[in-house]
């Protein structure tokens, strides 16, 4: 009997040791295959890469094949080892178990449990205490971890659906603004005869207390005068959106590669084709990609980024699926607008964002994602307390005015128009201010106060990108595949002359000094007589013009896509002033400050001026 027990014990020990060894080997093998998984083999891809550089290297091919074969062999061997080892281990464990069991049952007839000796009544009390303690502990731990955990999803929903919170802040801040504005020498002394200014004087309600200002924040909002607008560069193509800048001493000589006359340059973090705008010491541009739509505010003197603000968490905004836009339009094509109190930006997502000059959001809304196969590109303008937005999409066109203070819709006019990418012009035609829009097929004018259509003229076709020009009582509209038309506005508008030799596709025409300039995508700048349409000159450079020509300080500034700025005298004879370059691609139109020119390349934003 004893011998049998001994034998069983020996077998148990032997089988146990065997199992242990097999187990250790198995684990080692497992780790080894894990480390040297042939699928993660680094050598073969390396060799294949070398082969692709030298495609006919037979020796290398042989080497790869040999290596590959070896790796596979090793892998299958270890697979076999693991499988066999698994069976061996199982066998060993079974033998050990049987042996131990036999030994134990042989030793004593019955295998009893190793018993504790303790008082059962005491045990019960202890058990109760422990259970209660454990229960309380678990629940407390749950409560604490619940409190500590952050519910991003709930927060997202709350922020999305509760504009009330942000509105409260807005009211207060715009109230302050309103009060601040009272102190500003806003209207009286400035440019008499300017109707915009005159309107300001009559329409600004005076408010005396903060309480009142807060109560009627929209009504008390003051707005910039035309003179202020002209002193700055608030919109795409200047304060009227027609390509006329009023700044002086504009540089004509620089070089982006050598750095000559480049006062500063910065890389705008996100791409965009919106042109810069300027107010006071601040310069604004937008940038966007699928992850975020952002407004950047730079110090116009130093190029320092003062603040940036994202157009995020806007109700109705497409959070993940960006509208399909083409690469040459992007999500941030429209240029911003400012009235000196707020800046406004719109993106191809249909998000409109209003920020105060410190980057704090005043309001934001989504106009509905525009159905636009390139991407929404029409820029913004501000008229008094209204932000004017042209919203021509594939689903039909409309133009609307939003309150600059609250974003509420003041008026909206549905246009019988097709989609367009042109930006609005806001022109005082002598008796009134008109908002003029170009699209397929019309050039139409609206009263910016009410949105009523003042006049319209069918003269365009195709996909209209260029905005209108204005000079001396006449509007000029043009588009590729259509024509260049000089329109006499009024209740019965008429086309005074038209021309179709040189037509722009993207760049807007410019009218100044009784001349009309047209810049084409095939690299020609043509100059016509504004009254008769007689062509004075044409000049071909070859690089396409996407940026619009802007008139400043006696010259026309026109950047081509290579980054070269063609500075031409605005005169009947072609007179090239200079052709400096920034050395990178340009599709944005320049912005002007006194003595300065600001230009956004595809990569960097440049400030040009004499040092």
């Amino acid at each position, binding site marked *: 009997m004893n011998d049998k027990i001994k034998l069983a014990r020996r077998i148990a020990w032997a089988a146990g040791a065997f199992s242990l060894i097999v187990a250790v080997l198995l684990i080692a093998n497992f780790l080894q295959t894990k480390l040297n998984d*042939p*699928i993660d083999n680094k050598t*073969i891809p390396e060799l*294949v890469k070398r082969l*692709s550089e030298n*495609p006919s290297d037979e020796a290398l*091919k042989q080497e*790869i094949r040999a290596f*590959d074969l070896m790796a*596979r062999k090793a892998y299958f061997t270890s697979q076999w080892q693991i499988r066999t080892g698994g069976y061996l281990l199982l066998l060993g464990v079974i033998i050990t178990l049987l042996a131990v069991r036999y030994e134990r049952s042989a030793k004593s007839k019955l295998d009893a449990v190793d018993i504790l000796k303790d008082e059962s009544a005491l045990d019960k009390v202890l058990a109760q205490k422990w259970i209660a303690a454990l229960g309380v502990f678990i629940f407390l731990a749950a409560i604490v971890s619940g409190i500590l955990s952050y519910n991003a999803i709930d927060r997202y929903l709350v922020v999305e659906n509760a504009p009330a919170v942000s509105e409260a802040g807005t009211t207060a801040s715009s109230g302050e603004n309103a009060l601040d504005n009272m102190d500003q020498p806003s209207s009286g002394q400035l440019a008499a005869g300017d109707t915009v200014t005159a309107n300001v004087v009559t329409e600004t309600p005076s408010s005396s207390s903060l309480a009142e200002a807060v109560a009627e924040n929209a009504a008390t909002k003051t707005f910039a005068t035309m003179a202020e607008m002209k002193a700055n560069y608030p919109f795409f193509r200047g304060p009227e959106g027609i390509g006329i800048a009023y700044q002086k001493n504009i540089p004509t000589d620089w070089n982006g590669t050598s750095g000559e006359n480049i006062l500063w340059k910065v890389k705008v973090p996100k791409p965009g084709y919106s042109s810069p705008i300027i107010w006071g010491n601040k310069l604004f541009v937008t940038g966007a990609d699928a992850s975020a739509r952002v407004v950047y505010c730079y110090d116009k003197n130093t190029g320092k980024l003062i603040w940036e603000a994202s157009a995020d968490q806007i109700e109705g905004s497409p959070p993940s699926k960006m509208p399909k836009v083409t690469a040459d339009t992007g999500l941030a094509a429209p240029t911003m607008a400012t009235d000196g109190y707020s800046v406004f930006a719109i993106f191809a997502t249909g998000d409109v964002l209003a920020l105060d000059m410190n980057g704090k959001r005043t309001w934001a809304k989504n106009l509905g994602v525009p159905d636009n196969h390139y991407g929404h590109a029409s820029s913004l303008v501000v008229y008094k307390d209204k932000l004017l937005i042209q919203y021509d999409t594939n689903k039909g066109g409309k133009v609307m005015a939003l309150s600059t203070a609250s974003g509420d819709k003041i008026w909206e006019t549905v246009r019988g128009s097709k989609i367009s990418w042109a930006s609005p012009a806001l022109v005082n035609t002598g008796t009134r201010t008109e908002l003029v829009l170009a699209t397929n097929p019309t050039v139409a004018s609206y009263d910016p106060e009410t949105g009523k259509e003042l006049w319209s003229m069918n003269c365009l076709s195709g996909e209209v990108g260029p905005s209108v020009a204005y000079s001396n009582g006449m509007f000029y509209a043009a588009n590729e595949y259509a024509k260049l038309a000089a329109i006499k506005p009024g209740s019965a508008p008429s086309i005074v002359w038209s021309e179709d030799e040189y037509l722009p596709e993207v760049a807007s025409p410019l009218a100044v000094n009784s001349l009309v300039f047209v810049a084409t995508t095939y690299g020609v700048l043509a100059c016509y007589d504004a009254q008769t349409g007689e062509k004075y000159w044409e000049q071909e450079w070859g690089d396409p013009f996407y940026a619009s020509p802007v008139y400043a300080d006696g010259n026309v500034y026109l950047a081509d896509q290579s980054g070269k700025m063609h500075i031409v005298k605005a005169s009947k004879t072609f007179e090239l002033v200079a052709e400096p370059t920034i050395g990178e691609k340009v599709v944005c139109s320049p912005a002007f400050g006194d003595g300065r020119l600001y230009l956004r390349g595809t990569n960097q934003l440049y400030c040009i001026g004499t040092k």
Partner: protein
Amino acid sequence: MSDKTERKGMERRRFIKRGMQATLAVSLGGVAVASFMKSYAGEMVWQIDPFKCVQCGRCADECVMMPSAVKCVHAYALCGYCDLCGGYLKPNANERSTAAENQLCPTAAIKRKFIEDPYFEYEIDEELCIGCAKCVAGCTSFGNGSLHLQIRHDRCKNCNECAIARVCPADAITRVPANQPYLIKGDFTAAGDKAKKDTSRMSDNN
């Protein structure tokens, strides 16, 4: 007296016991009936919808089986039998041969066999296939999409909850009735056809 209380206690206990028995039996019956209303006499198995699959590679790593029970299958009826096979050759393969440096499959599980000029047959060696879907990606973008992943039921353990389904980014793995255990391309189509199939499956249940 003690006898009496004891008997009373006994009776009470028996009453409680009977009552609890009844309660348990009734609730068990309730669960049974409620589940039975939604039961399905057949068996359900896991399968991949090839039209949802995004070739993320997780089938190779996440299956409880090693190597995975997910294999690439070849719908011969859809194959173009091309010489230049996007599922077999590396995108920038050195030449159109079976040499190791040209094969896309990390385990060389695809066999290429010449049939007649210019046709080649491709066959999956399921012993080697690990279900990584690399060839599926190649075939889908360059070829006819005849290579696709399926769960092979001779290997699948039909786990209660498929370990791959849990991490599948596209929710491509679903339960299908065991009498139609495959969603092989060609027999099975996306979109409109599938809707039809689904409704028929629903009516099978009733």
